[in-house]
């Protein structure tokens, strides 16, 4: 979809000044168990937060909540981890506008908070959030993008303001993964690449042929049986003589998996790995590329495509057969 930069930025500015939605109301009143848990995790041992006797003797006259808990009182809980469970609001609409244009990355950069007073158990906190500013386009180390600043005003159940927060995120286009290279003169770290296959006396020739753009299958020099992966001796006749043939690269998927987790750097999971029965009768493990992951299936006909996966490594990959 062709959208000019002017049109895009004009669309962004329409969001400035808008409240993102109805006030977010805390699921729980300010309460001592949550205060205690928070203090334990933060290792904050100030007794006015957890010790009723000490708190009673303090200037507060009773237990109060740590001011820095302010935002926690209105957070969503576990639903935060499930974007589809989140209702649409202006902030998410704004992010969707960015995503459409390729600004899919998001990173929090700053958070300023101000507290009007301590909160006490029994108060109900709500927060109203306004999209305050959207910057002009910035070039950053992680990609070009725009800073979005939101201001949340926190109130108690009587509408009394108890604090505010300004939160700044960068919505950015992730830089294209640079080609594999050692750290350059600028000291930037090398991008992660796929693991290499160690080359031994037994298999090095096979990988060298891949480098030359050919998929070979080892063939016994005595009885002629084909075998993969390569090995030094024929299991049929014990001959150590061998040659090889060039595979047609035509095959059928015997089984496959979709790799999700753990997300190993350099591979771009999720990807499909398949066990492929080659026309010649040997099997090979590879990736299936050039189609959606949900199109991959057992019995699918595939054909070879030897491709560079980074600056240094070629791999025999497979695509849906034409």
């Amino acid at each position: 979809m062709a959208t000019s930069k002017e049109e895009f930025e004009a669309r962004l500015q329409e969001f400035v000044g808008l409240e993102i939605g109805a006030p977010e109301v805390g699921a729980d009143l300010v309460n001592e168990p949550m205060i205690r848990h928070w203090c334990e995790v933060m290792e904050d041992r100030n007794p006015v937060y957890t010790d009723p006797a000490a708190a009673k003797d303090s200037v507060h006259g009773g237990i109060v909540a740590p001011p820095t808990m302010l935002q926690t009182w209105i957070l969503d809980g576990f639903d935060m981890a499930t974007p589809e469970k989140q209702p649409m609001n202006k902030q998410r609409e704004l992010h969707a506008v960015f995503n459409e244009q390729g600004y899919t990355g998001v990173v929090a950069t700053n958070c300023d908070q101000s507290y009007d007073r301590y909160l006490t158990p029994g108060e109900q906190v709500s927060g109203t959030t306004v999209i305050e500013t959207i910057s002009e386009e910035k070039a950053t180390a992680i990609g070009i993008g725009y800073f979005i600043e939101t201001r949340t005003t926190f109130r108690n159940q009587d509408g009394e303001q108890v604090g505010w927060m300004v939160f700044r995120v960068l919505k950015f286009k992730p830089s294209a993964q640079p080609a594999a290279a050692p750290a350059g003169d600028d000291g930037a770290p090398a991008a992660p690449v796929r693991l290499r296959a160690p080359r031994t006396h037994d298999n090095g020739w096979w990988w060298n042929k891949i480098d030359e753009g050919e998929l070979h299958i080892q063939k016994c020099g005595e009885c002629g049986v084909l075998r993969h992966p390569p090995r030094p001796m024929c299991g049929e006749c014990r001959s150590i003589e061998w040659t090889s043939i060039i595979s047609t690269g035509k095959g059928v998927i015997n089984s496959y998996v979709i790799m999700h987790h753990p997300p190993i750097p350099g591979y771009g999971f999720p990807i499909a790995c398949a066990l492929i029965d080659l026309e010649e009768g040997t099997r090979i493990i590879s990736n299936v590329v050039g189609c959606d992951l949900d199109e991959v299936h057992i019995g699918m006909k595939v054909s070879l495509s030897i491709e560079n996966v980074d600056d240094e490594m070629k791999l025999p990959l497979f695509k849906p057969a034409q």
Partner: protein
Amino acid sequence: MRYENDLRDRAAIVGIGATEFSKDSGRSELQLALECVSAALEDAGLEHSDVDGMVTFTMDNNPAVEVNRFLGGGHLTFFSRIHYGGGAACATVQQAAMAVATGVADTVVCYRAMNERSLNRFGTGIQDMQPEPTTASAHFGWYAPYGLLTPASWVAMVARRYMVEFGATSEDFGRVTVAARRFAATNPKAYFFDKPITLDDHQRSRFIVEPLRLLDCCMESDGGVAVVVTSLERARNLRCRPVRICAAAQGATNEQQMMTGFYADDITGLPEMGLVAKQLYATAGIGPEDVQAAIIYDHFTPFVLAQLEEFGFCGRGEAKDFVKDGHIDSGGSLPINPHGGQLGEAYIHGMNGIAEAVRQLRGKAVNQVDGAEHMVVTAGTGVPTSALLLGADG
């Protein structure tokens, strides 16, 4: 090929010991080893000076001589290590039994102690594969460049084919975990004590490697387990009711690989486990119908189904129905992993399963199976493996 061997009833397990099972033991693997070995000796009513043999896994980081030295032990006449990850578990007891049967040693301790969760997670696979061109690294070189890097991925490749061949579903795998977690829920030593799950929980858990979900994979654990083996004759004069080693076996087949046996004609079975099963039944002189309960190695659920088939507890491709019909549950015809297994109790590379079989055959397990006289115990699958057929004594 001859399947029967001479190990029947030559040796017995006379002591078991374990640390707690956790995600972060907070102490060294060496200390875990010393704690579990000394607990097993105490259980057996033996002194550390009685120990003259030690067996562990190649993957264990605690050398036998160090464990022996720090226990204040005496002379060792037998020490051995077994390769192939969790496939070593039951083979430690097999080697102990062989040493005892031949008089090479009198009292052998088998142990496995690891900070597998807090120090060295196996689930991350071979990301740290060394670039040196050895036979082992070149082997993984056929998979690593494509991202097929983790144990879950190697099992998933076989599982997908199994699903298509036999009409098994993700729910069929999930029922294995549900059963394990139900047992773990009533085992206070289990990491997932009091935390049963539903099939729905399984179905909602995220994919690790499709078709495997998070809840198809066992947990990762810190902990140690040890067992003590001596002759059956001597066992009968010790503190606890002995558990007879009716048979013990290892197995590796012609197309065997380390987790990546992708080149056999049929990849859906576990032929190495079938080979082990044949040896156990032939040596013990009994069949699957004489086994009342089993410890089935459960690092990944699909291989539990395949093992039930290889041991003849059900027919080929029928394990999904066997599980669905409740045979593996409490009160079923073959309760499996009554401690909760590695899906529910802890992942100590199969050794905690051996300890559970001993408790069952002593009649002192927390989820006791009524009338348990004979039990099969298996070790890691998809790798060269091992298993035991254990029996109650007297």
